[in-house]
């Protein structure tokens, strides 16, 4: 007999295949569940249904700037953040500095994108718990951000706006007033969302004490973003490893405090996102105030980018956590290696450790609170 112990199948347990076609797996995530009645005793995430060979394809493109539209497609609900991160990485490799005005516009765009992405996360989280209406209210607001993006870049979802050395084109003349307008109308909407969803007792009962992620576990799994901050760890790359002009801006890092349950439960992860939207509004207001009115939006970059030999890792705080690009250059116009450290992928690995013992309905809530985007998980 070989050493492998054949586990006798437990007849009380049921193996259930959740996804890849399931309403609340946020795309094409497949979960292999082992259930004891309604209680989850085993979770095995299966990924790869949306794999598009981003990294390999990036290495086959003969130009660094050709990769930018592909970075959009990693986390397709937060495309600006990906472009921003990739552009920063290549600029570091090229050792160029972009004009000040560009920095401000980039930060405003990234923060607007953060709000848009969090709105989607919060809305779909409500949807997972059966509240349909907050989802559409969130989408109404998200549309307004997309309108601003569309005016600037010409596209609503995959912008290809931030490019190596600056921006594809200057923002339209009414960008400032549009953004200010959005900021002022959006604040009351957060309150409305809180009335409708955040303070709802049914919602709290569904999310408090559920999927508790202790801080050490989160750190051990290298979680980042709202998932990590929900566990009470104050870690934000914008503040702790500042890039661009974030060190000149004043903002708070909201963390989960277990107001209605345990620190690190689903509600904490949720409320961190809601509070972050308000912080982003603050950043946008400051950046709008300081933004130079006129100026160049593109640094002189050679037509064919040939970075010096070397490697670089740049990490930024995307709406989902630490997004890093690791690029190796061999002095040719073709990137030798492009590796994306996707926060969703890392955060998803937490799932089995925090969902054991919860119920089937809770599992949906936990997946929703981690807020994965499969485009980024599978790349």
């Amino acid at each position: 007999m070989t050493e492998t112990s054949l586990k006798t199948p437990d007849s009380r347990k049921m193996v259930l295949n959740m996804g890849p076609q399931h309403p609340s797996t946020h795309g094409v995530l497949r979960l292999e569940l082992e259930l004891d009645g309604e209680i989850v005793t085993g979770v095995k995430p299966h990924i790869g249904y949306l794999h598009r060979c981003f990294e390999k394809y990036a290495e086959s493109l003969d130009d660094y700037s050709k990769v930018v539209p592909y970075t959009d497609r990693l986390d397709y609900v937060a495309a600006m953040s990906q472009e921003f991160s990739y552009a920063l990485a290549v600029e570091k490799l090229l050792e160029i500095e972009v004009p000040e005005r560009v920095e401000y516009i980039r930060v405003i765009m990234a923060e607007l994108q953060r709000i848009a992405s969090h709105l989607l996360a919060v809305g779909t989280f409500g949807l997972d718990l059966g509240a349909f209406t907050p989802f559409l209210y969130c989408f109404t607001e998200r549309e307004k951000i997309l309108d601003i993006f569309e005016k600037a870049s010409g596209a609503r979802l995959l912008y290809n706006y931030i490019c190596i050395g600056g921006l594809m084109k200057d923002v339209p003349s009414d960008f400032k007033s549009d953004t200010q307008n959005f900021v002022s109308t959006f604040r009351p909407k957060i309150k409305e969302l809180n009335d409708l969803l955040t303070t709802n007792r049914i919602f709290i009962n569904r999310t408090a004490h559920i999927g508790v992620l202790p801080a050490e576990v989160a750190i051990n799994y290298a979680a980042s973003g709202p998932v990590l901050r929900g566990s009470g760890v104050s870690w934000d790359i914008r503040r702790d490893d500042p890039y661009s002009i974030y060190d000149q801006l004043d903002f708070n890092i909201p963390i989960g405090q277990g107001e209605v349950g345990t620190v690190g439960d689903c509600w904490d992860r949720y409320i961190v996102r809601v509070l972050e939207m308000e912080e982003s509004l603050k950043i946008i207001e400051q950046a709008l105030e300081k933004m130079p009115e006129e100026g160049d939006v593109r640094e002189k970059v050679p037509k064919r980018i040939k970075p010096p030999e070397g490697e670089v890792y740049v990490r930024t705080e995307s709406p989902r956590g630490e997004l890093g690009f690791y690029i190796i250059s061999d002095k040719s116009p073709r990137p030798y290696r492009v590796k994306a450290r996707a926060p969703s992928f890392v955060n998803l690995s937490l799932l089995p450790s925090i969902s054991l013992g919860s119920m089937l309905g809770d599992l949906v809530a936990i997946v929703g609170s981690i807020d994965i985007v499969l485009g980024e998980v599978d790349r």
Partner: protein
Amino acid sequence: MIELLEYTIPSTMLALVIHALLPLGFILVYALFAIWLERKVAGHVQDRLGPMRVGGWHGWAQTIADMLKLLHKEDIIPTQSNKFLFKMAPYMLFTASYGAFAVIPFSSAYIGSRVDIGVVYLLAILSLLTLSVIMAGWASNNKWSLFGAMRSASQMVSYEVPTVVTVLSVIVVTGSLNLMTVSEMQTGNDLFGFLPNWLILQNPFLVIAFIIFFISILAESHRVPFDLPESESELVAGFQTEYSGMRWGIIMLSEYADMLLLSLLGVTLFFGGWNSPFGVFMAGPLWGFFWFILKGMLLVFVMMWIRWTLPRLRVDQLTYLCWSVLIPVSFINLVLVALWEMIF
């Protein structure tokens, strides 16, 4: 009504059949309207418009078009399912809710059957719903369906208790199980000189009873926040996962029929049934029908409004709410209602 039919139609048999089929016609029209209304309510609550295209004015014919589409669809029956039970379940489901309409007094002139055990009959036939849902879930041979069926069984069995107890507290006041008699008892506007004699206004503890009753009927008819048997974000579609085409249409129809049935029961027990709120003004058999349906539709509207506002409970919270909150409260309330009746 039956006398009128027997008088106008020569054959007694035919008259009886027409008499029995009257609610069916009504339910079908109502279901078409209610589904349209639900989509409209959902749309407007969410700053949308809902269906706008089919039929002209605000897409009034949308559900008719949908029904025609469902009729055309292929009748898919999973190969590994228990085919007989799978086919039977939707019919059983609808039969149960339709059978219960027999004792609902639609107006002072129309009630399907004026039996003296009306309420008992209604509650008894409603438990057939549980059976048919389990049938549908089990016969589908799908794990999601099974989950939906098991959830639905535990939910409906649990929530039958508070429903029965709250109905009982009304019976304590009325002293009759016949819903027609209950409605007739609430005629008139004598309360403080102007208020209608509705039971909910007669006894303050019946207000609490109504709240419990309303929560229970939400659960009985699988409406949010108690739509666990078909919670689409957890169980795909619960016990209906494998159903498609007109079989699914019938399940949907009986769901809406259920909503109306339980709302109408609530109206009869608490809100004066077919009585006009203005005493003798706008009273009479036809007006009675109008008031009865209006009150029922108002409750249905509230159900829809709740659906598009609230998230859903979890399975254990659902049973907790029932066994630890609603049942004890409803029993205490029953005693209080009885005491109030004794004293006043």
